[in-house]
């Protein structure tokens, strides 16, 4: 189903760069009741506030830094390296928690989800465990930051001393050559490999530095033994869960900036009245970025006994895109996400099924038509009246007569179940099969091949011939030129 609707691409893009949070299980768990959907809508309403979104993003970054520091602390071998990275992990953690607490207190988000977490943080940050941790971090860090030393290298002899105010020679050199320093582009500083490890000369030097500054290094040792299990479990879980929202927000933000509308759908678990305006295929929009603003948007509605859109029309008329969009809207809505549409009132389905034309599968040893029949039977056996079914070019591998007959039977079964669906077909007569069917037609408006307008509408097909005057094609008429030169 994900693959037919191109939701696999969508979710891969949403989760990209966020492997560490393992978001896929969330995407595979649609919600079954409207209240749960609303709970998520509330959280995302809060996150629409840039200040809160930034606070969450900063928190995630700091926690990522913390994990990296912990990774180094466990991987590296030199004693002072391990303990110093552990200290930095704890420091990143404290900073993350304090910054998030401050932000939540200031913003005071209204959603049930955020409000509860804000209260938890307020208590936690006042606890002795946390205040003790932050105080120790600050004390030990500043002691180490004050350490300054000198290394004198001559041949193979190395001497390590405390730094005692020796003058900066590099600025002296710079001063002499300052008049030639302007407008230089190339930086000749050599990029040293930022290896985390120390070589044995560095390790030897740090040992000697520790002997020059014994108190600071003793404090570091004590910190590591005293605070080994500092990470709070609730905070760790929040760090992961909030990414479910942040990831989607980041994914759709550039599309919104490109002029695409998203909305929180009005959901119902009982009424199948459907009303959608300005909907588009999210996977296609992502592919078209940054020019997604020109993507075709469609509107559709179902009233009374209407349940199934039967889509016909010319090839490359946007039929498949419409079918995918319909499925995507319902699935994304059931995850509690805002949907790619200007406005949407949707039914909350129990499941979304798809039946797309497949490449012939040699392993099954069945013909394509037979394979399709087997698959649709499986779907219809599992589907309920609360399901959504998207069928695309089903039964195209057989004769028109067969396709029509099977199509009629499948449509009748779908109607009998009462489920919502899209049925994309080349068989025109299916469009008016019964009262549950709504005929939609793909249209091609060949104005300019570069800007294809592929709308699916509730009316018969009409082709518009368009021939521009040749000068007009190059925008060289008087009027066009005046406009161009007025820039």
């Amino acid at each position, binding site marked *: 189903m994900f693959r037919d609707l191109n939701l696999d691409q969508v979710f891969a893009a949403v989760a990209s760069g966020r492997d560490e949070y393992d978001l896929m299980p969330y995407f595979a768990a649609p919600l079954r009741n409207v209240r749960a959907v609303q709970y998520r809508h509330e959280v995302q309403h809060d996150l629409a506030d840039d200040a809160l979104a930034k606070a969450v993003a900063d928190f995630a970054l700091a926690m990522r830094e913390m994990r990296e520091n912990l990774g180094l602390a466990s991987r590296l071998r030199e004693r002072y390296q391990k303990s110093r990275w552990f200290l930095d992990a704890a420091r990143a953690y404290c900073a993350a928690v304090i910054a998030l607490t401050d932000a939540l207190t200031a913003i005071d988000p209204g959603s049930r989800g955020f409000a509860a977490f804000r209260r938890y943080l307020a208590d936690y940050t006042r606890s002795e465990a946390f205040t003790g941790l932050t105080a120790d971090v600050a004390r030990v860090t500043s002691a180490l930051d004050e350490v300054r030393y000198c290394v004198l*290298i001559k041949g193979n002899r190395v001497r390590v001393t405390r730094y005692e105010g020796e003058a900066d020679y590099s600025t002296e*050199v710079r001063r002499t050559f300052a008049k030639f320093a302007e407008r230089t582009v190339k930086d000749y500083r050599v990029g*040293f490999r930022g290896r985390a490890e120390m*070589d044995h000369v560095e390790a030897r030097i740090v040992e000697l*530095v520790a002997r020059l500054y014994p108190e600071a290094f003793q404090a570091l040792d004590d910190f590591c033994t005293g605070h080994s299990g500092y990470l709070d479990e609730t905070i760790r879980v929040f760090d992961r869960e909030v990414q479910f929202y942040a990831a989607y927000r980041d994914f759709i933000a550039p599309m919104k900036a490109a002029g695409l509308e998203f909305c929180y759908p009005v959901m119902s678990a009982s009424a199948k009245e459907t009303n959608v305006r300005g909907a588009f295929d999210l996977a296609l929009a992502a592919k078209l970025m940054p020019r997604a603003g020109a993507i075709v948007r469609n509107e559709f509605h179902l009233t009374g006994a209407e349940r199934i859109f039967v889509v016909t029309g010319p090839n490359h008329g946007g039929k498949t895109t419409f079918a995918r969009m319909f499925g995507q809207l319902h699935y994304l809505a059931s995850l509690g996400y805002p949907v790619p549409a200007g406005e949407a009132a949707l039914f909350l389905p129990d499941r979304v099924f798809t039946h797309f034309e497949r490449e012939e599968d040699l392993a099954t040893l069945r013909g394509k038509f037979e394979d399709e029949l087997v698959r649709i039977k499986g779907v219809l056996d599992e589907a309920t009246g609360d399901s959504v079914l998207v069928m695309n070019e089903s039964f195209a591998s057989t004769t028109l007569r067969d396709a029509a007959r099977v199509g009629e039977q499948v449509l009748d079964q779908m109607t009998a179940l009462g489920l919502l669906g899209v049925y994309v077909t080349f068989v025109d007569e299916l469009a008016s099969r019964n009262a549950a069917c709504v005929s939609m037609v793909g249209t091609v408006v060949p104005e300019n091949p570069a800007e294809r307008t592929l709308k699916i509408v509730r009316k018969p097909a009409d082709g518009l011939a368009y021939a521009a005057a*040749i000068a007009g094609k*190059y925008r*060289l008429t008087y009027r066009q030129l005046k406009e161009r030169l007025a820039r």
Partner: protein
Amino acid sequence: MKAFLLYPDRDFDLELDLPPNEADLSSDLELDPLLLAMAGGDKFLLDVARRGLHSGLTIPAEIVYRQHVLADCIARPAVVRELYDVSLAAITGERKLFGWTFRDSPESVLYRARQVMQLYLDMFRRLRGIADAHAASFGSEGFTRFFAMLTEELADGYLAEVEAQLGELAFRRGTLISARLGPGAKGTGYVLRRHSEQGWRDRIPGLNKAGYTFFVPERDEAGMRALSDLTSRGLNSTSSALAQSADHVRSFFELLRAELGFYLSCLNLRDRLTAKAGPVCFPDPDSLVPAGAGPVRLSARGLYDASLALSLDDHQAVGNDLDADGRQLIMITGANQGGKSTFLRSVGQAYLMMQAGMFVPASSFAASVSTGVFTHFKREEDITMEMGKLDEELDRMSAIADQITPGGLLLCNESFASTNEREGSEIARQVIRALTEAGIRIVFVTHLYDLAERYYGQHDPATLFLRAERQPDGHRTFRLPAGEPLPTSYGQDLYQQVFGAPDQAQTARM
């Protein structure tokens, strides 16, 4: 340190893109012979000549600034060539100083930068010598400032300080570096330090400053590498600063060479043109005239096509007089091969040269500057389908419309002739009207009688009509006096000239 010989306030930008229509200008205006004459066989000069020619200066004061510098160059060519040679010596000398390790370490960067700066120090002294000897004989603002800058920036005391500093950067007492603890307790913030003065206490073991010493065994290769790595970190910013200084000086010499090179290329061209007895003069540039804000200027005496002049072996190119002050549109009709295209080219070349601060091929030339010269010439490419040809033409015009701005100059040579006369005229009318209204000047060579005749009927004082001359015997003078459009272009004359057999019926009709 800036040479500022091309602009009073900025460098010659060698990285700047040429105008997007440079290739069109080059082929339509036949700029190659002109540029080759400027280059005189030098590839570098060819490049700076091309960039210089497309400077597109629009401020008369900047044009005059160059004219004055160029006048100095014409008066003292030997000194200018000497300056050019010093800059060239600095550049070629630097190229010979290769770094001596493959991997750039701060030590090798520093070593090379010290050598390079030493070389530049010598070149500075040579520049100073030229300035001291000749500054007084230069009168232009550009050269006066340049010589004063050399005297001030490269004072004797400063040159001595540089020399001393280069000596100290050899670090004979070892490298002293300070540091603090960075991420993971690794050293960071390495700063090169000056050794404190050694007192007697420092020489006695046990009494000197508290510290610990160790030795890396010579056979410990990894250890020695680590040590050199550490030294590198300490030297990093200092060696980079010195190398950057060397770069800056190199770019000074490179710019000096390029800027002087442009003037040398002008001298080359001048020599070639005057050898052909072609007059050259410094034009009189006038300010840009915003759309509708008054009459534009354009008048010339003896204006000729410099590229044509350079390629003619014996006879001189024909010069034309032009009085087009106050004219927004110049429409040129008349005999085939009557000098119309040549005239268009001479106007385009003169504009480019004027706005490059150069002399122009004319005995006098005065014009309002343009915001850009554009050409739309009939192309001879073999495009078999007629539709395709018109498409190609319109596409090019559309590209021009994307680039041209008010105050631009558009030179059209038989535009829109690839369709029938009625359609071509209609398209042309719309284009001309929109462009001239936007404050763009157009010189339009055309055989579209329908177009030219209708414009003539409007009696617009902002339109000038020129007609390629043809004497009663069919001989062409290649001159373009003012004249109303005539319904035929004397193609028959050419036919006669080529085929020799007069066609009675057609001659009679004419």
